[in-house]
C-alpha cells in the first residue's frame, strides 16, 4: 500500500473563507435576531428611554435573570434533556433563603449554602430518576415542578402562616456576603456580571473541555456515545445539578436584592429559559447548540420584554406582541442557520 506518496487532495473540499466559517456558527442567528430587536426598539422607543443608560440597565437586568438559568439549561438541552423544574426550584430556594434569614436568623452564608445544597440534592434526584428509569426528562421534571412548588407552599405556610416572607433587608444590612450578590455599579446590577461569568464558564466547558465533548456526544446519540465509553449517565446527572444550582443562584440574588421571598417566585422561568436556549441556536432534539447563543437569546428576551413597555404598547396587547416577536426571532434564527449550513 502506498502510504508515503502524495495523495490527490479531496476535490470536494474547497477553501472556505472566514465569512462562511462564521456563518456556520450556531450563534449567528441569535446575534442577528438580537441586533434586529435592538434596532426595532431603538426606532420605536429610543426617545422614550430605551436607549438611555437607565433603560439599558433595566433590560440587561431582565436578560441577566433569565440568562443565568438559560446557560445551564442550554447545556442540558444540548445533552438531550429538559429541566422543567427550574422555575419551582427558584421558588423553593427563595424560601430556604428567606425563611432561613428572616425567620430562623441564619447568617447569610449559611442560608446561601443551604439553598445551594438543597438545589444540588434535588438536581441529583432529577438526574438519577431520568437516567435510571429512562423516562423522558420532560415528564420527570414536570412532576418535580409540581412537587417542588407544592412543598414550597406547604412548608412555608406551615412555618410562617404566610405565603410571603419579608424582612431580609433588615437582617442583611451591611453583610459583605450579601453584597456579592447585590452590588451595583451606577444603575447596573451585579447580576449582569454573574450572568456573563456563568455564560463564559458554560461556553468554555462546552467548547474546550472533554466534558463538553461528552455533552455533545450524549445529546447527539446517547447509544453511540456510550458505546465508545462516554459516561452518559454521569454527564446528565451533573448537568441536572447544574441547572438546579443556577436556579438557586438566581433565587439567592433575588431574595437578597428584593428583600423577600414569596412562594410563587420563578413561575414561568422554566419556559423562558428554554426559549433563551432555542433562540440561541440550541436544538430541541439535542446534540447541537451554543451557550454564547443563549446569551444573545437572553438579551433578545430582555430587550423584547422591556422594549414593549418602553414603546408604550398597550398592556392588553403585550402578550400578543411578545409572542410575535419571539416567533420572528426564532424564525430568523433558524433561517440564518439553514442558509449557512446549506452552503452557497
Amino acid at each position, binding site marked *: 500500500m502506498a502510504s508515503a506518496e502524495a495523495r490527490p487532495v479531496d476535490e470536494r473540499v474547497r477553501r472556505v473563507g472566514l465569512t462562511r466559517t462564521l456563518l456556520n456558527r450556531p450563534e449567528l442567528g441569535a446575534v442577528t435576531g438580537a441586533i434586529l430587536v435592538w434596532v426595532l426598539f431603538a426606532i420605536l422607543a429610543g426617545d422614550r428611554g430605551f436607549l438611555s443608560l437607565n433603560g439599558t*440597565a433595566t433590560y440587561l437586568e431582565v436578560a441577566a435573570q433569565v440568562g443565568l438559568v438559560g446557560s445551564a439549561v442550554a447545556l442540558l438541552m444540548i445533552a438531550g434533556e429538559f429541566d422543567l423544574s427550574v422555575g419551582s426550584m427558584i421558588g423553593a430556594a427563595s424560601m430556604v433563603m428567606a425563611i432561613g434569614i428572616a425567620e430562623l436568623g441564619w447568617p447569610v452564608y449559611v442560608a446561601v449554602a443551604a439553598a445551594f445544597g438543597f438545589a444540588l440534592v434535588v438536581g441529583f434526584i432529577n438526574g438519577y430518576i431520568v437516567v435510571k428509569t429512562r423516562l423522558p426528562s420532560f415528564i420527570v421534571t414536570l412532576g418535580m415542578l409540581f412537587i417542588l412548588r407544592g412543598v414550597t407552599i406547604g412548608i412555608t405556610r406551615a412555618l410562617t402562616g404566610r405565603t410571603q416572607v419579608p424582612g431580609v433587608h433588615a437582617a442583611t444590612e451591611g453583610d459583605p456576603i450579601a453584597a456579592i450578590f447585590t452590588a451595583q455599579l451606577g444603575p447596573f446590577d451585579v447580576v449582569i456580571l454573574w450572568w456573563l461569568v456563568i455564560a463564559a464558564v458554560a461556553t468554555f466547558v462546552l467548547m474546550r473541555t472533554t466534558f463538553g465533548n461528552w455533552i455533545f456526544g450524549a445529546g447527539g446519540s446517547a447509544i453511540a456515545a456510550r458505546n465508545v465509553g462516554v459516561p452518559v449517565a454521569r454527564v446528565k446527572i451533573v448537568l441536572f445539578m447544574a441547572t438546579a444550582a443556577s436556579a438557586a443562584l438566581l433565587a439567592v440574588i*433575588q431574595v437578597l436584592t428584593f428583600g423577600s421571598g414569596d412562594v410563587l417566585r420563578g413561575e414561568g422561568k422554566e419556559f423562558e429559559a428554554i426559549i433563551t436556549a432555542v433562540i440561541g441556536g440550541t436544538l430541541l432534539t439535542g446534540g447541537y447548540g451554543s451557550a454564547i447563543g443563549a446569551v444573545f437569546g437572553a438579551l433578545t428576551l430582555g430587550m423584547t420584554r422591556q422594549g414593549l413597555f418602553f414603546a408604550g404598547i*398597550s398592556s392588553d396587547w403585550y402578550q400578543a406582541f411578545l409572542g*410575535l416577536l419571539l416567533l420572528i426571532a426564532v424564525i430568523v434564527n433558524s433561517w440564518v442557520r439553514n442558509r449557512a449550513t446549506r452552503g452557497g
Partner: protein
Amino acid sequence: MKAPRWLAGVAVLGLVLAACGTQEASPGDDDGNGDGSSRDLRIVVVTHGQASDPFWSVVANGVNQARDDLGIEVEYNAPETFDMPAMAQLIDTAVASEPDGLVVSIPDADALGASIQAAIDAGIPVVSINSGSDVYRDLGILTHVGQTEFEAGVGAGQRMAEAGVTNTICVNQEVGNVALDLRCEGFAEGLGGVPSEVVAVDLADPAGAQAGIEAALSADDSIDGLLTLGPTGADPALAALEASGRAGDVQIATFDLSENVLNALDAGEMLFAIDQQQYLQGYLGVLIVTQFAQYGLLPGGGNPILTGPGFVTPENAAQVIELSAEGIR
C-alpha cells in the same frame, strides 16, 4: 444572501402593528402644539394586577376615564403573573422613561422598595393605590388611594358576627399578596379573635378552587361562615356551596364585586360584599398625581384616601348591577 420576501413582509407588518399599538396608548397627543399644559403630561401606572383580571380591569377603566377626562397620556402596565421581581423591573423601566408621574400598587414593600425609591430620587411624583396602605409613608410616597385591608377585614368580621356566625373559612386566591393576608387577619379579629382557617386557591384555576373549597367544607361540619377575598375566589365558593348542599347553613361574604357576586346578593344568597370601589382607585390615583405634577396640589394631607369599605347588600344590589355592567363597579 437574499432574504426571502415574506420575511421582509413580516418585519414590516410587525413594525406597523407596533406603531399602532404605541398610538393607542396616547390618544390626543399632538406633538409640540403647545396649548394646554396637561396635554403633554405622561403618567405611568404599574400594578400587580393583570388587565385580564375582572377586578383590575375596573381599575384600568378608572385609569382610562381619568386619561380621557384630563386629556393626558397614560400607560397601564402589569406583569403577566404575580411576579415581584418582574414588577420591580417594570417600575425601573417606567422610571427610565422619565414620566411626569407614577402610580403603583405595593403588594410587597421589600421587593418594590428600591425601585420606588429610585423613582422618588429621580424626582418623579409617586402615588400608591390598592395595596400598601401601611407602608407607603415610610417609602416617601405622596399618598395612598385605597382601602386599608386590616380594618376592612375587621368590618367584615363584625358584620358576620352580627349575623351569628362562629366558625369560618377565609379563602385566599392570591397567595403571596400581603394585603390579602391582612384581610383574613382582620376578619378573624372582627369575629372576636376566633381564628379563621385559611384555604389557598389558585385564581387562574376556578375548577380547582371550587374543589378545594368543597373539600374544606366537607372536612368540617361546623363551618357556618365563608369569606372570600376577591371575585376569583367568590365565584368558585358560591358554586362549592351549591354543590355541597351547604348553601342554607353557611353565610358567605366576599371582598370585591363580580357579576356572580352581585346576582347572588340580589337573590339573597350572599350576606354582603365589600366594595373597595377600585374604579376610584384608578381614577383618583391618576388625577391626584397629575394635579400634583401640574400644580403641586395634594389632598388628604398625606393620609390615605379611603375608597372603601363600601358594603353592597341584597338591598342595594340591583343598582350596583347596572353599573357593574358598564365596568364601573
